């Protein structure tokens, strides 16, 4: 058969990293990315892109850890290369502080990040309202640069990208052999997944270049993440809120909370407010499905529902999705062993 045609729906961090893995694992495939939004207008562009995993209640911890390890190793290598600045990937050190000592003092990812250890008494003095803390070094994927760099790498391998709102996966069955659904929060409408729900996050992106360390409150609500040009201040976690409009009261609240962690932020300039809807789910939907209509079968690989943890597991889930695409291709009528995994 002719080169299998794969369409990836979605151009956030998951769609683009999945497309990249597919081109690597299935070089004979023709891969196209379709999305109604591209950087800088994806959910990923709002996120800080910090590699600090979110725990999915429905996924075994060892699987989540493997996903994170693969992602960390992959990005670590790029951060250490001449491409790092273009790719927007850089190391950042800092502290996660807790007002009350957490039940789990050693998160599952503590040996994947660098230099993880409890904070010293002297370090904790900087946070008078907090009693316990962890210091470590991790990676940050700054967007838009990271997404633009992924797009550039994809284009270099011949991947086409089109702005297109896909209303129904069936639309694509005559043009493509396999669909990969990386639609993020869009999957709610696209495939009618009731288990997928938004967790609204509002953030401020400010100019405060003297902030070199990250600070995160262990409750996950207040965080300061220094990026290449801007510092991301957060945030909120509003379940089931679909509003993409910035709320001024929330802006003030975020700013105040961050200033109480890092007083020098009072001098921050040029405050930009952004909103993103984390595509949340008990577990990432990472599975094959065969759509069937009037005798026609249409394979789909789902890779969405990464919630607050998309950046941290991007490579792990992308590789698994690519593997599933390989299985779909092998199962296509008329396919031979040309579809290499």
């Amino acid at each position, binding site marked *: 058969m002719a080169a299998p045609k794969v369409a990836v729906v979605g151009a956030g961090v998951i769609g683009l990293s999945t497309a990249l893995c597919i081109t690597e694992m299935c070089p004979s495939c023709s891969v196209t990315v379709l999305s109604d939004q591209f950087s800088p207008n994806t959910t990923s562009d709002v996120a800080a892109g910090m590699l600090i995993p979110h725990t999915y209640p429905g996924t075994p911890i060892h699987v989540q850890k493997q996903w994170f390890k693969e992602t960390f190793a992959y990005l670590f290598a790029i*951060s*250490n*290369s*001449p*491409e*790092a*600045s*273009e790719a*927007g990937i*850089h*190391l*950042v*050190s*800092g502290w996660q502080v807790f007002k009350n000592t957490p039940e789990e003092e050693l998160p599952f990812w503590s040996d994947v990040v*660098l*230099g993880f*250890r409890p*904070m*010293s008494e*002297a*370090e904790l003095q*900087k946070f008078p309202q907090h009693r316990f803390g962890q*210091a470590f*070094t991790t990676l940050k994927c*700054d967007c838009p640069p990271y997404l633009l760099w992924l797009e550039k790498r994809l284009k270099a391998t011949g991947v086409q990208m089109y702005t297109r709102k896909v209303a129904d996966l069936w639309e694509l069955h005559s043009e493509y052999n396999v669909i990969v659904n990386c639609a993020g929060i869009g999957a709610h409408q696209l495939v009618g997944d009731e288990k997928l729900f938004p967790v609204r996050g509002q953030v401020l992106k400010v100019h405060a*270049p*003297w*902030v*070199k*360390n990250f600070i995160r409150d262990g409750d996950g609500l207040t965080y300061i993440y*220094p990026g*290449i*040009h801007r510092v991301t201040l957060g945030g909120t976690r509003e379940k089931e809120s679909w509003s993409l409009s910035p709320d001024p009261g929330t802006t003030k609240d975020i700013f105040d909370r961050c200033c109480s962690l890092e*007083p*020098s932020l*009072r*001098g921050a300039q040029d405050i930009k407010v952004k909103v993103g809807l984390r595509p949340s789910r008990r577990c990432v939907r990472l599975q094959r499905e065969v759509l069937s209509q009037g005798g026609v079968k249409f394979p789909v690989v789902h890779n969405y529902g990464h919630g607050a943890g998309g950046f941290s597991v991007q490579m792990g889930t992308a590789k698994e999705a690519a593997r599933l695409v390989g299985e779909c291709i092998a199962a296509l009528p008329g396919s031979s062993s040309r579809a290499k995994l």
Partner: protein
Amino acid sequence: MRVAIIGAGVIGLSTALCIHEQYHSLVPSLEMEVYADRYTPHTTSDGAAGLWQPYLSDHGNLQETLWNKETFDYLLGHLGSPAAKEMGLFLISGYNLFTQPVPDPSWKNIVLGFRNLTPKELELFPGYSYGWFNTALMLECRSYLPWLTNRLTQRGVRFFHKKVESFQEVSGDGVDVVINCTGVRAGELQPDPELQPGRGQIIKVLAPWVKHFIITHNIKSGIYNSPYVIPGSEFTVLGGIYQHGNWNEENSTRDHKTIWENCCRLLPALQKAKIVEEWSGLRPARPCVRLERETIRHGPFQAEVIHNYGHGGFGITIHWGCAMAAARLFGSILQEKKLANPPQPRL
């Protein structure tokens, strides 16, 4: 009583402020003047990246270690204040790298979170097999010196753009106490063979993705003769030059090449960084800081001189401890002149 400070780098201005803060209310007649041939942004201090970090070994100079600690604690206390941004003061974490294990430094308990590097961290730095991680402070003099100048101006201290050629020039004019903060050119006021320039050169680049300082060490080449990368609030400083006895303030092409190649090998991402500026400066190197009193006589005139110079490549690191020590010497001068009882020692 007239007090003249000669030198307007980090040492001169901080000593002036420290003395004025402690004594102006006790000595109503206190008049303070600053004389310097160079002001910010043209002083040696302005060229320094501004990282608080002493040399690896204090050579048994416990006094200097204490002054370093005083400075760190003083600055740490200012971190949460609204002035921090204006002062150019912020926390920064980073790496010290070695090719072999070394003893812990005297300042390991002064900085925050000092620890050894893990094997995985060392993978970032091929060629280095041992190292430290810690959180320290940056104090950028391009901001700090103007901040000090503003505080002093508010206090009525006057500034004169003038090259002072001799102590007598100032003492003969009726100045009672001279504070000598002339840095590398102190020998022009009074010969000091122990004071030598430690020439450095740096390249300033735009590399805002670099969030850590990285200081490499080569025990054979000596301090600062091994590449270092220090990210500031606007630019990142690349360096690694220390030439003892070299008075040349011109940039050297050969040194540029050394710095650039070594730093890019250390941090490959720097290859894409845009070069913004190049600068050379002379560290006022001395086996130990000269911080002491001297009475200078010239005919009928007599002046008390407090020397405070010779801070090498650690002036910012040690400045406040030295300013406090100089202020104590000033206090003893006042006592002798029966002008005041010194204030209670401050912490």
